[in-house]
């Protein structure tokens, strides 16, 4: 288990670069898995301190919660005593609901989801006020009428809600330097398909795929000790910066009678695990959340502050959950959060999103089910979860199996199952979307497995270059470093100008490391 780093005593040389993170404490937000170290980007940009967050809502009349995030006590207010028993809707209410969905009464500009939300809101309010049985439901305006009225009021009152469209980001020119798709350029997978596969020519190097600026990652050709020092530094940074502790699990308040309908107008909200039924004044309605998402996308691109982004996304997800909003927008929020979590190697958070996404796709909502189904397979390959892997296979339709991303993931699975490391590393090189972040998680252990194979099978030696190429190391240097890291210094020898790897003498050298690498993967929140 990771040692927890008290945020108050950062290791020497690490300045608290981020006051936001500093307000959180102790345990790391996610279990650091073996990510390729070079991806761990030092969080250089000091993010704005949380208490002085720009008040995006100030332009709007927001009488409620004046960005006082510390008002946790309000959330923790004694729970409203709500009986858990099921409600029986009076006949008049049922008729009202039915009336709303009669085709003749439908309003084309109002979606079904909006109507359902509105209906819930109306009925919940009636229940809470105890007027369910006294209200004249027959003369009650239909939800679509209410929504239209509200829209008119809204337009006069404040900015219209952001149309929910594709991100504005740098989707126009996917540069050759960002081969591994960044979550911050939230481009469609289709755009990516058009991109040349990375390293189609041998000349393009692995580091070109890396999302972060080159100078931040250790130079592979530098001596070993230097590299490890850099790694340590980055690890420390990561621990420190990622060390926020919001409660981990999804909220589990006591079941209430109906979904909340939020009235909060603030764009940003800190995540707090609910211990009581949520208050409408602290929950943001969907149209505000859409603005929040736009804001967060911009911030992520600009600051890359994962602790902040993750926290904000969690609170967004919470607001959506408590309002029971399950529509295309919900999918978008989960997808973006999942991608960001992937990029940062936060598999615990990724897995939560993935589980929800699976359920959301089942509802037939739009999104990128194929992209995420492919991740799901890779994820189960990583966690070696056979039961889930089998379930994932059982879920696929014939059409889905032909989808490039899913097919790739399936090929990866089968290559590994058959021990075909040659094929595996070719596939590693051709990973679509952000799957490479997942594959990075297990490429190390697969290299060890392949090395074990090679040592047992080849006698007396192979050129080091062969290892480099078969296992897709970036350079002979990196391959050599990998061998050295596992105490293989005796096995490298120069012979007539080429460096040879003495496989015949390796014996059981890599077996221990291999067994260890394949032992249980521990991820918080893992299914």
């Amino acid at each position, binding site marked *: 288990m990771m040692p927890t780093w008290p945020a108050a005593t950062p290791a020497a040389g690490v300045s608290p670069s981020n006051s936001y993170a500093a307000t959180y404490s102790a345990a790391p937000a996610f279990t650091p898995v073996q990510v390729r170290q070079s991806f761990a980007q030092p969080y250089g940009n000091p993010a704005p301190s949380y208490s002085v967050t720009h008040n995006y809502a100030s332009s709007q009349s927001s009488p409620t919660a004046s960005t006082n995030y510390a008002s946790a006590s309000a959330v923790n207010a004694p729970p409203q005593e709500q009986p858990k028993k099921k409600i029986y809707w009076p006949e008049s209410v049922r008729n009202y609901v039915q009336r709303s969905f009669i085709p003749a009464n439908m309003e084309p500009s109002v979606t079904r989801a909006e109507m359902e939300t509105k209906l819930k809101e109306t009925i919940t309010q009636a229940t809470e006020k105890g007027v369910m049985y006294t209200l004249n439901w027959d003369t009650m305006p239909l939800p679509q009428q209410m929504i239209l009225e509200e829209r008119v009021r809204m337009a006069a009152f404040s900015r219209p809600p952001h149309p929910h469209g594709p991100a504005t980001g740098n989707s126009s020119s996917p540069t050759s330097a960002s081969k591994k798709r960044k979550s911050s350029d939230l481009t469609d997978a289709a755009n990516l398909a058009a991109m040349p596969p990375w390293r189609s020519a041998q000349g393009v190097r692995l580091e070109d795929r890396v999302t972060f600026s080159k100078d931040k990652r250790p130079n592979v050709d530098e001596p070993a000790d230097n590299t490890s020092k850099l790694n340590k530094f980055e690890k420390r940074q990561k621990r420190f910066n990622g060390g926020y502790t919001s409660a981990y699990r999804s909220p589990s308040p006591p079941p209430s009678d109906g979904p909340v309908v939020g009235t909060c107008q603030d764009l940003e909200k800190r995540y707090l695990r609910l211990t009581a039924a949520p208050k409408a004044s602290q929950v943001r309605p969907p149209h505000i959340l859409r603005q929040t998402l736009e804001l967060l996308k911009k911030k992520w691109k600009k600051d890359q502050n994962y602790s902040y982004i993750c926290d904000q996304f969690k609170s967004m997800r919470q607001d959506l959950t408590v309002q029971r909003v399950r529509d295309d927008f919900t999918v978008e929020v989960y997808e973006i959060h999942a991608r960001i979590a992937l990029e940062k190697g936060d598999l615990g958070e990724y897995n939560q999103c993935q589980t929800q996404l699976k359920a959301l796709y*089942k509802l037939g909502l739009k999104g990128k089910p194929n992209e995420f189904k492919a991740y799901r397979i890779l994820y189960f390959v990583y966690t070696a979860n056979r039961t889930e892997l089998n379930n994932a296979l059982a879920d696929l339709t014939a059409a889905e199996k032909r989808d490039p991303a899913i097919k790739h993931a399936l090929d990866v699975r089968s290559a590994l199952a058959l021990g*075909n490391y040659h094929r595996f590393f070719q596939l590693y090189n051709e990973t679509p979307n952000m799957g490479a972040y997942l594959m990075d998680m297990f490429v190390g252990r697969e290299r060890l497995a392949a090395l074990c194979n090679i040592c047992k*099978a080849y006698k007396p030696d192979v050129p080091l270059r062969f290892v480099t190429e078969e296992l897709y190391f970036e350079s002979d240097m990196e391959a050599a470093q990998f061998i050295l890291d596992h105490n293989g210094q005796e096995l490298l020898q120069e012979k007539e100008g080429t460096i040879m790897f003495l496989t015949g003498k390796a014996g059981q050298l890599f077996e221990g490391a291999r067994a260890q690498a394949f032992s249980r993967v521990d991820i918080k929140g893992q299914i």
Partner: protein
Amino acid sequence: MEVGAPVYREFGEAWEDNDGYRLARTLSPDLTPTQLSNIYQSINPDAGNWRNSQEDNVKGAIKRGLQASSARVKGLTNDEIKGWTDVYYAYWTAAGSIASARTQGQSAGGQSLWTEAFEQWKKLVNALIQGYNNHGFEAWTIPCLYVAGKQLRLFAMLADDERNKNALENDSANAFQDDFDPEADKHQKLEDCARVLNRVFTICLNDRAPLEESRKWGIYYIINLLFKTYFKLNSPSLAKNVIRALSAGRGDMPDFYNFPKSQQVTFKYHEGVLHFLDENYAEAEKHLTEAWGICHKNATRNKELILTYLIPCHLITTHTLPSENLLKPYPRLQKLFLPLCKCIKKGELHAFDLALQEGEDEFVERRIYLTLERGRDIALRNLLRKVFIAGGFMPATEGEKPVRRTRIPVAEFAAAISLGSKERVDNDEVECLLANMIYKGLMKGYIAREQGKVVLSKSGAFPGTGV
């Protein structure tokens, strides 16, 4: 009015003999709808003291019936009678629901008749659990738990089916409910059933009475029900918890082999499959072989199920294939395994891939796909062996046994591998496959990369195959 009398008579007689199975029959829902509704109508809830509620009236009637019929039985305490009254009251209510579900189940679609039957039956199971916990029910009566548990599972599945069929119609009503995962909703009642069965499991497991009169004798029947439920729910991991709880208390458990054979077979089968799913093939083989050994010779379906997992196990552990003779009585298994077996035997790599693809859906459904896939190694081994044999012998030296050619160019293996698919496989990939063979001990020798050759062992290049 007196149609309930046979029930009471049976009750009394079962008690005289302490015959649990006979007692359990009085709680059977396997009656015709007419019989069931007769039971339901045998007591007029409105007869009796008008100041009491219907429930009290019915219970009063049942209690009188039970007392009358068991008057001669010694040792049946008032407390027990009270418990059994609750049980039969629940049975009486459930009988009404089941009868209407059986008669109207098909015609009056849209109504949740089976859900109602399930809920009522659940009350019966709970009344039994209460009886064992609070009213001192004796251990010989556990067959009642068998009947109750078995039926609970069946009603749960019927209720789930019924709801899923009507799911589309109920959609707008569901919008107000809290269910997030539509998948989870599919097995709502069965999950509920699993929870109830787990309580039954606990009251059997935790009985501290001496073994002769312990509810522990009911444990394997209930475990098997739980296994079936958990497998149906697609959560074998929960089944493992049961095994864990069982092995924790194994010390004071009756000997496994003293339980009925039928329970042993089912238990061993599930235990084997659980190990199988964990890739624990040696353990799996042990349990499955045991199940195979004690399975009744005419239980074709069960034997078929055992073989479904035992055959892939054997493929992994001993690299052996089932004989045609073995599969003769099982056409379904023949269809499942024979195409793959043929390809493995002949070393037809490409045909193997196609056959695996062909059966993929079925293999995945039975959770044997990932295991069978590994049969490709054996197919490859057999193919490489053919290459080796085709290489012939070295020129014989005087007076010695001829020796096979053991230095084989990688290109020859490459040609063999691409023979079936007609696709060129590059030499590096072929070497990778060969390295795997050597690493897994299926082939003895080494690759000399510089010469582009494989040097095979002179004695037993392919262990266990005679060359």
